[in-house]
């Protein structure tokens, strides 16, 4: 009864075209944003100050859970645009994330290239020469990473005109394997370091340290300032929230309609004047833009240092596809729900299984936890797909419909 549309009328199309049809939804969203932006950081800060929580636990929540969740949400949004809205299955998500990460890295170090020459003694002298001034603004880096990835995504989207369905899905693996190979083979990408590992240099935003550390003189003493987990979290959160709105706007407007038309019936879509190649490529571009940003965020905020071939391997692609499907294809909310499910369930199982085993007096070692976790996770996915193939977003909707009537039967 608290969740009813009764009494809410719209007198203009502008209002009727709004994102939320119901006041309750709108309030709910503002509430969630308030919690995410204010209650969480302030609350955790106060809890640590008040001694209710260890500082390391706060770090853990931010660094291992919230940031990962935000990165995954961004990637899931991206893939959902391509797969959920435009109907093109892609298994190359991780590789596109990798493109984003390496782009961010290259721009943050000024697009170095190497000059090698031999000196008189026959020793090789190599020197890195920057092509551009290094960029130290993380948000700018994330956006550039998105744009470059969009271009790469378009290139690998080209076969989608001819190849459809699962054949396309497998064909996108070509992008996955090729790009990942580049991450470990094209020396320019990782500034020629022998291990092909990249590490983001120190970055700052509005004077706040975001990555690396900074040593300053304060009261005549050297003080090293480390990035606060809150800073990273709030930047990531802002990016994700903003681009979730962008995604929502795209999919509810003409672009989204064109995508969905291609998804639902591409022949009919063509006959009403939708250009299939342009529309699909736009979806690849936008999707890759999001995935690229996710990759850059993963490097800058979450991992800091990574090895391309390992961090963006094919299992990550599958994980993101899982998020999208479990969350609900063609749903922005679903992308978040799916990312939360896939990110949090394994962590939850890992943490809770030993405790649970302890309750029953069964010692559960780490390997056993991992095995059981995999089994439960696999089984959960199957059960879930059987019970609600349309995903968490659909469950959410059903829940809302129930709530609409509750507590009355009609």
């Amino acid at each position, binding site marked *: 009864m608290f969740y009813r549309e009764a009494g809410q009328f719209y007198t203009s199309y502008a209002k009727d075209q709004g994102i939320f049809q119901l006041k309750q939804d709108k309030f709910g969203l503002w509430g969630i944003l308030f919690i995410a932006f204010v209650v969480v950081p302030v609350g955790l800060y106060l809890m640590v100050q008040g001694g209710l929580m260890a500082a390391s636990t706060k770090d853990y929540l931010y660094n291992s859970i919230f940031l990962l969740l935000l990165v995954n949400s961004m990637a899931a949004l991206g893939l959902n645009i391509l797969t959920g809205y435009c109907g093109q299955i892609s298994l190359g998500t991780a590789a596109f994330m990798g493109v984003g990460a390496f782009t961010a890295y290259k721009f943050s170090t000024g697009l170095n290239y190497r000059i090698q020459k031999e000196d008189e003694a026959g020793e090789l002298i190599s020197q890195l020469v920057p092509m551009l001034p290094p960029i130290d603004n993380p948000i700018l880096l994330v956006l550039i990473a998105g744009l470059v990835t969009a271009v790469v995504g378009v290139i690998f989207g080209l076969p989608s005109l001819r190849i459809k369905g699962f054949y396309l899905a497998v064909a996108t693996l070509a992008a996955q394997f090729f790009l990942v190979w580049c991450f470990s083979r094209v020396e320019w990408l990782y500034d020629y370091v022998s291990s092909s590992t990249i590490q983001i240099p120190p970055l700052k935003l509005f004077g706040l340290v975001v990555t690396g550390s900074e040593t300053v003189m304060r009261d005549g003493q050297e003080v090293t300032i480390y990035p606060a987990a809150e800073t990273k979290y709030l930047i990531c959160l802002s990016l994700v929230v903003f681009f979730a709105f962008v995604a929502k706007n795209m999919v509810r407007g003409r672009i989204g309609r064109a995508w969905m038309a291609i998804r639902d019936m591409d022949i009919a879509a063509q006959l009403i004047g939708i250009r299939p190649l342009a529309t699909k490529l736009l979806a690849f571009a936008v999707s890759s833009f999001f995935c690229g940003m996710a990759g850059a965020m993963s490097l800058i905020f979450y991992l800091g240092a990574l090895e391309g071939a390992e961090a963006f391997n094919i299992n990550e692609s599958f994980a993101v596809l899982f998020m999208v499907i479990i969350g609900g294809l063609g749903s922005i909310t679903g992308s978040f729900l799916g990312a939360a499910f896939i990110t949090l369930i394994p962590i939850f199982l890992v943490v809770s299984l030993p405790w649970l085993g302890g309750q029953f007096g069964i010692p559960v*070692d780490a390997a056993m936890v991992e095995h059981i976790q995999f089994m439960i996770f696999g089984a959960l996915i199957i059960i879930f797909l059987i019970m609600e193939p349309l995903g968490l977003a659909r469950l959410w909707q059903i829940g809302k419909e129930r709530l609409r009537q509750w507590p009355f039967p009609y």
Partner: protein
Amino acid sequence: MRLKGLTLGLAAAVAATGIAAPAVQAADTQYFPLFTYRTGPYAPNGIPSANGIADYFNYVNLKHGGVGGVKLVWEECETGYNTKKGVECYERLKGKGTTVVFPYSTGITYKLIPNADKDKVSILTVGYGRTDASDGRVFPWTFTTPTTYWSQASAFIKYIGAQEGGMGKLKGKKIALIYHNSAYGKEPIRTLELLARKLGYKLTLLAVNHPGQEQKATWLQIRRERPDWVLLWGWGVMNQVAIKEATNIGFKMDRMIGVWWSGAEQDVVPTGDAAKGYKAGTFHAAGSDFPLIKDIKKVVYDAGKGIPGGDKYVGQVLWNRGMVNAIFATEAMRAAQKKFGVKVVNGEQMRWGLENLNITAERWAELGLKGFMQPVKNTCADHEGNGPVLIQQWDGKKWNIVSDFISPMREVVRPLIEKSAAAYAKKNNITPRKC
């Protein structure tokens, strides 16, 4: 978009199940997180390594009641050799009193290095990880004790030179490196290339992608190039397949040398007799014929207090290496206890202990490992401890040491390390410490 609520709920649930309470370190225990991979593609190597550490800690507790009266507690966290899981483990466990971590994965090591000085947690990478982190001036918190990949590569070249009858004979010889296409596998390339320029041998680089189940093309190229020596820098199933393929094409096994991670029982046993004669690097002796190892078997396993099914690993190469890892940690702890006059050691004290780690030959003997390893001594600038390298050979049943301790070409490797570390320092605004 109600997800944040859900997230929080779940996070709260996670927190409730065991991590929320401020970490209270029990007054008389020293906590060690162990990053293990007992599952996944590298599990066969991960299990004995993890057991080696755990068994030694267990032994110290059972036999000596801990280190300096402080009981050791350890907690395993499964990473599956996956960096993201490793990060999650690290963040989850670091607040529980962690002073030192053993990432057991090059990828996780790279990720943790930038965090180390903020979190006051040392990173001890025994024979893996980031080689240039041996420069203690730039990487005060990272320890590559007792030796590194670059040192090992130079030692291999020295060994090959000796086998060929002198370093001068290397000119014109062909050496092929078959490596795991990852940060780990690529580590020796720079060193080998530099030495190739100096010594005039021809180096062929052959990369093998994870997991390395299929190496036909690689070994066809070996057939074509017909190198005099093959160096194998593999991990997991790649090792077994490489050894098998080598015998298949009739390559002489005693001219194939594996990195120390390619020279364990797990790598050679599945290939049967094929591996007979295969050589691999190591930095400690093989086998269980040492008083300490026998004692561990007795105190831990014969008393039924060991890891179920773990006794078969005792004395294996990777198990021994895990034990060495644990010994470094306990010795550093012991040193720190003595220096600071404390029982439970904190992060900075542990770092001091590792930096001043000094295990002399007498100390090895005292530990019950006489002749097991060369003395190890770290300094402020040098976190590698200059450990020499051994060559071991598989005789079809067990590994035998077939060389003396070969000291690496320090004059070549150390400048490389310093140069690389300096570049890192510059990029990351780090002012190197004065040593």
